[in-house]
């Protein structure tokens, strides 16, 4: 019997599920002995390239994804990993565009290339093991033991990455540490005058071009930023339950779960929602959270991004929001202070807060 040729190189586009699951993929493929090739970081050229291929109504992240696939093909990598994540729980489905990612890529790009397209669909009982096995089979590896070992290796990398981010290390730092096999934990939490939580999908938030470096911009203004990576999935699920909502979308926890957690423990002063223009699920999730925010008196700003987002207008809106939070916090501090020591506290707090202001 002729043996199937084993592919030794696989390209992963730096978009969509890369931002949440890359370390699992990396550990998995490395253990199988497959070399991983990444596309370059998103630039305006990537976006323009991707926009050429898809119809105009398609949402921004998909355009970026197409750009990354083209980038990989230009690099000479003709085996591309395009997973279809249909559902992550019983009746917890993903957005149609993520579910149909391989279908879109197959039909819009008219170049010869091999697409590795496993399916994860827990509603139809196709679990993670089947997902991994399918991937490996398409690569030409059929040894069950090896696949199981590779899955463990993937989990190990993913978990160490998650542990690091949970302790408060930034995304890029944690990614580099995990790739180099290091494990670093932050023990001291830096206290800043203001803190916000950003509710956004990983592929929007951690892509520095798409989010226009939102996290760094906020940190420059002296704002502590929490993201969905700072808390565990279980915490997110629990918080969502407490809020009385049901998880409907597969990647919903990044937004609603994360926002619900910080909304309930009152650790933050405001919520920033970042979503791509025309994103169907996001429009519902942000609405859901803004409903609860209104009840609890938590400020929320909804930023929408697309390929035309001007950076200047974006900064102005964030600055205005941060200024507003600052004023709100100052007022509540003054009101809560005891009348006796009021004058002193005003002076002290004013100084403290103003030093960390945006200006």
């Amino acid at each position: 019997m002729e043996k199937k040729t084993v592919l030794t190189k696989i390209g992963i586009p730096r978009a969509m599920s890369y931002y949440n699951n890359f370390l699992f993929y990396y550990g998995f493929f490395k253990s199988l002995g497959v070399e991983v090739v990444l596309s370059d970081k998103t630039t305006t050229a990537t976006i323009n390239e991707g926009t050429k291929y898809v119809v105009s109504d398609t949402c921004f992240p998909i355009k970026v994804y197409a750009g990354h696939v083209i980038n990989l093909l230009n690099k000479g990598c003709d085996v591309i990993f395009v997973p279809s994540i249909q559902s992550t729980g019983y009746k917890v489905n993903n957005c149609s565009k993520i579910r149909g990612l391989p279908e879109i890529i197959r039909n819009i790009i008219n170049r010869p290339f091999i697409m590795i397209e496993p399916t994860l669909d827990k509603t139809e009982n196709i679990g993670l093991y089947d997902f991994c096995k399918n991937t490996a089979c398409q690569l030409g590896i059929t040894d069950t033991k090896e696949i199981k070992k590779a899955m463990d290796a993937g989990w190990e990398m993913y978990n160490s990455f998650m542990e690091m981010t949970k302790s408060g290390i930034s995304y890029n730092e944690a990614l580099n540490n995990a790739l180099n096999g290091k494990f670093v934990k932050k023990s001291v939490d830096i206290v800043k005058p203001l803190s916000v939580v950003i509710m956004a999908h990983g592929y929007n938030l951690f892509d520095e071009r798409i989010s226009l470096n939102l996290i760094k911009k906020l940190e420059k203004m002296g704002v502590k930023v929490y993201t969905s990576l700072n808390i565990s999935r279980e915490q997110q699920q629990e918080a969502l339950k407490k809020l009385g909502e049901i998880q409907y979308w597969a990647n919903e926890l990044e937004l609603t779960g994360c926002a619900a957690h910080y909304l309930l423990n009152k650790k933050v002063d405001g919520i920033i929602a970042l979503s791509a223009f025309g994103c169907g699920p996001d429009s519902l999730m942000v609405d859901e959270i803004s409903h609860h925010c209104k009840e609890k008196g938590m400020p929320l700003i909804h930023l929408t991004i697309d390929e035309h987002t001007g950076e200047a207008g974006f900064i102005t809106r964030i600055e205005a929001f941060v200024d507003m939070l600052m004023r709100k916090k100052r007022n509540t501090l003054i009101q809560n202070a005891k009348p006796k020591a009021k004058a002193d506290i005003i002076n002290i707090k004013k100084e403290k807060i103003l030093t960390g202001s945006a200006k």
Partner: protein
Amino acid sequence: METEQKLAEKEIKIRAKDRIIAWPRMGRIDIPLKALVQSLGAKVVIPPANSNEALELGVRNSIEGICLPYKLNLANYMMALDKGANTLMMFQAPGSCRLGNYTKMAQKTLKQMGYKFDMVIFDMYKSKMVQTLQAFWHVTHCLNPYCYYKGFSLGFNKLFAIDTAERLLFYTRPRELNKGDAEKCYHKWLKIADETNSVRKAKRLKKQVIEDFKKIPIDKDKKVPKVYLIGEFFVLLDPYTNQNIEKELGEMGVEVQRQIMFSDWLEHVLKPSIFYKKESHRERCVKYAKKYMKRAIGGECIETIGDTVYAAKHGIDGIIHISPFSCMPEIVAQNILPKVSKNENIPVLSLVLDEQTGKAGYITRIEAFIDLIKRRQQKYAI
């Protein structure tokens, strides 16, 4: 969760006798559903047909990013509640698209606006005959099996009759000698179907419709281009939303064929799969779409692709694909369609509809497309 639900039920306790039921409009579903619910002994309110006024009401009270069908559904609910309804019905199919979120959102919005009502949800995930019956029982508390038999057979027979009338209308309209005959006949039968009240008469409806349409004088030898209408379910069935595209096309002398019919879909959804012997529309679509799509991704995406391939192989001249703005499954379909169109050699026109679509520009595009099809026909004839 359960205790919460019980509490909610206590809050709005409506006796079965006092129930006045309403549901959102979609195509001609109101006639069969009315027959069914009324024979179970409940009162019914039918919201007025979708119009600019309804759309405005819906847009004003819903969020920006939601799709067009929701806005119209919400307006239907509000209008029905204003008319005195106190029980709302809606079906949902989790996992398809944003449709699964409709009821949750509508409930929240309406409660915020101060309406008091009870919402009954039909969960249509895979065939669920038992659940549907339970929901009807919850609404009407009707225990008489004869009523159920009467209701369902009335409903289904009316539905089949209406769908037959619609199919015949599509065939007759471009060929009729006296303009407007087919349209008149169709409306006449809609009215008769609505008024029919006995199972015996309802069973005869379909035959009578066919006979009546045969009487309309038509030009049988006329060469008529055939166009498939595909796309999103709601937009296809609702004449207001699609700007009555079927009529416009028919008057241009084009035979419209629509594969998504309400009765087919309902039969497929309700009947347990063991009783379903012939190949359903969906199965056929999955088979034909295999070359382009390997998995279903929710909504009507796979139907759209499958129908296009099927049409190309069965002598159809063109495809018009309509979808509401920002409909997720249809955007995926739009991305795939150019390749299908090229490979299968069939022209495709994609139209995206939203609340601002101007009719003039819309008609121009359709006219241009029909011209293209006619020229193509001449080219192949030579």
